[in-house]
């Protein structure tokens, strides 16, 4: 313990050097900015900046900056989710559900504030946990093999059906649809293309960013443009900026649980921030005394997931730094950044580059404080966006989304996808179908499909491998309980009463 403290102080002594503070600050500002701009995400930003770090004379500074872009984007991502129902980055999809509802009710201020505060608490908590027990958790990360990933994906799919305000039956249909679209692309096990229709850009599957941007953001803009005349887009009243006492009470537990869940999921390579926020949302809905409020502006539905995705962003540094295993696309780019600086992430990094290891971790404490100071005052500014009429805001967002999507891979197919997804999002919105379960299932489909096939290969074709390994068996067990409980409460409450459609106007 004392040893850890010493090392953290050593790290802090490096992180507070003026040039490193400046790097962290630049990264935080940049991260917040790209998090806010729809379509532009941390992956593109870090990838674009990567070649610039080739010549950097100071490896620690360069890595501090790249890392702070990552967690900075997690803060920024919630802003447009709440205000416009445009997920700034993928992990904020869940925040759209209740955050946007809150904004419609004139509670955009509290939603934005709680997102920033929750992110701060989760981010800091996660870094503390990381500093003390991080390296020990590395073993947990590799214990996740194909059977465990499959079980986790199934668990996620079951939870997906129950997010949003609709009935589980409707949610279930959207989940199936999401799986279908998630299967587009090259099959991992045979190398054969599925549903790609000869389009090269589809060989890797439908890209997540244009899909989410279109389905949520553009769909919502189109829907709003239709409501001509009155600016019913969002209520023009803005209200308080900070949460009231009741909202605090509802959020506190959610932030705590979200932080722990996010931290654990972030440790698993391939788990990532998205699953963390999905889990947190479902847990909050299940634990809530007023589950019917979820999907209609429950603050816990913003506080939990936003905390979870920040905690996961921090803890994903454990597999990255101690095992050299990038858990998601962003950490994969960071991994390359480390290699370029001649730092080999992996089991020996603590021995060979303690300055980088502890410097980066300590800079995350500093970065989280910067982000809170940066983001809280901005809440007042962001809510003013709601005053902008939809016929100006809509096209502006569309433009940024096109730009952001194109910047991903400089590929026009992705832009066409954005448009198609936008049209689909509009139809779903009109039909009062939730895009949330669709998006979650889309993300989980690939994990489920690949891990099932890998697990079967490992188990010589016997499905028993999934229930014979303790970790995957426990996840399957929990899933079964959730299914039984959901079906039970669905019938007990009577479908008409409990699952009335929320008013969509």
């Amino acid at each position, binding site marked *: 313990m004392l040893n850890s403290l010493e090392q953290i102080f050593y790290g802090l002594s490096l992180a507070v050097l003026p040039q490193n503070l400046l790097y962290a600050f630049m990264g935080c500002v940049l991260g917040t900015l790209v998090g806010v701009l729809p379509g532009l995400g941390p992956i593109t930003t870090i*990838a*674009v900046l*990567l*070649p610039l770090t*080739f010549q950097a004379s100071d490896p620690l500074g360069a890595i501090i900056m790249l890392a702070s872009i990552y967690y900075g984007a997690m803060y920024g991502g919630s802003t447009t989710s709440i205000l416009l129902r445009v997920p700034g980055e993928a992990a904020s999809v869940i925040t759209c559900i209740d955050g946007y509802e809150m904004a419609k009710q004139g509670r955009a201020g509290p939603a934005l504030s709680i997102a920033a505060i929750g992110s701060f608490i989760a981010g800091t908590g996660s870094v503390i946990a990381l500093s003390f027990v991080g390296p020990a958790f590395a073993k947990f*990360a*590799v*214990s*996740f*093999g*194909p059977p465990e990933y499959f079980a986790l994906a199934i668990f996620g799919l079951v939870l997906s059906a129950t997010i949003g305000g609709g009935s589980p039956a409707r949610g279930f249909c959207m989940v199936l649809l999401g799986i279908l679209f998630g299967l587009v692309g*090259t099959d*991992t*096990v*045979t*190398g*054969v*293309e599925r549903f790609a229709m*000869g389009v*090269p*850009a589809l*060989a*890797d599957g439908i890209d997540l960013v244009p899909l989410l941007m279109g389905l949520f953001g553009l769909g919502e803009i189109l829907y709003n443009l239709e409501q001509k005349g009155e600016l019913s887009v969002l209520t023009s009243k803005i209200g308080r900026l900070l949460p009231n006492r009741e909202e605090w009470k509802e959020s506190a537990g959610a932030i705590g649980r979200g932080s722990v869940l996010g931290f654990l999921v972030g440790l698993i*390579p*391939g788990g990532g921030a998205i699953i963390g926020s999905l889990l947190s949302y479902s847990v909050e809905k299940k634990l809530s005394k007023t589950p019917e409020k979820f999907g209609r502006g429950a603050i816990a539905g913003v506080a939990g997931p936003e905390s979870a995705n920040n905690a996961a962003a921090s803890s994903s540094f454990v*597999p990255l730094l101690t*095992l*050299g*295993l*990038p858990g998601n696309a962003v950490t*994969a*780019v960071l*991994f*390359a*950044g480390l*290699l*370029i600086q*001649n730092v*080999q*992430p*992996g*089991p*020996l990094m603590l021995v060979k580059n303690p300055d980088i290891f502890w410097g980066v971790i300590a800079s995350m404490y500093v970065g989280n404080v910067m982000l809170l100071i940066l983001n809280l005052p901005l809440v007042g500014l962001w809510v003013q966006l709601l005053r902008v009429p939809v016929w100006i805001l809509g096209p502006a967002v569309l433009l940024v989304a096109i730009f952001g999507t194109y910047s991903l*891979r*400089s*590929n026009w197919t992705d832009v066409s996808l954005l448009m198609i997804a936008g049209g689909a999002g509009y139809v779903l919105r009109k039909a009062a179908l939730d895009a949330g379960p669709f998006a979650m299932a889309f993300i989980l489909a690939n994990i489920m499909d*690949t891990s099932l096939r*890998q697990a079967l*290969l*490992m188990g*010589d074709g016997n499905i028993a491998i999934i229930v014979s390994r303790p970790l995957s068996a426990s996840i399957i067990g929990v899933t079964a309980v959730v299914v039984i409980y959901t079906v039970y409460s669905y019938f007990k409450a009577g479908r008409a009463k409990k699952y009335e459609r929320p008013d969509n106007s």
Partner: protein
Amino acid sequence: MKLKRLILALTAACALFAQPANAQYPDKPITLIVPWAPGGSTDQTARVLAKAAENYLGQPIIVVNRPGASTTIGMAELAKAAPDGYTIGTLSSTGYLVKLQGRQLSFDPIEDFSYISYYGDNLIGIAVLTDSPYKTLKELVAFGKANPGKLKYGTAGVGTTQHLTIEALQRDSGAKFVHVPQQGSAASAPALLGGHVDFIMETSVWAPFIESKQMRLLAVSATKRSDVYPDVPTFGELGFKSLRSVQAIIAPKGLPEEIRVKLEIAFRKALSDKAFQATMQKLAMQVVDLPGADVKKLVESEYALAKELIESTKK
């Protein structure tokens, strides 16, 4: 009408300027298409190599990343580019192996390109956990022969150089292993660490774990032993075939020979650059110098061998 005239005038002007330009190639920056995402091994090595080649060409080389669809998006763009020496690209074995997966491509991955130079091979090797009972490739093969289908192995994916080399090993030795394809090289190391597969055939993702003594390297598929792992035998020494993990510089088909030669000289001279060699070493890659004409022959023979292997796995 006005616009049309303007376009005509511009085209004429371009043609006029293009003529003498050919004589003193290059007189403007050159674009190098890397069909991989930024930060990967090809991106890192191609960038330093391009930087070194700039010195011999007198013009900057701008690296652009066109990732996706197993390099075929970037390769298609390169195939369509004008063969004027101002658009060149990198070739990895993935680019032609993907055709063997039955994928419809808008270009021929071998015939539609001119070959400028070679620059190296990825070091691919078989790794097991340190506490694994197999100390040599021979022991592993013997077990695979006695217990067909018992051992599972991971690679970056189906149809990759890594996978096909193990297919060749099985065909030539009679051993039988089960392939559990992973989603990319980075996923293979955790699969082995967690004990989800028995061995992996991978690019240097095992390197940090060899150093930390968590993994053991049984053999490498390279033309000669690696300087970093002088004790580890090559597949060839042990009597097994292996495929090359090609890294080359190419251009669209129809590149004028004098331009191709200029590029070849520049890129082959660049191989002796210190920064380039350091980057290759860091990624456990071997620098290999080959003339452009030999690169095409190498690619053709690799393609033929891969095709043969894939057909034998289908039986």
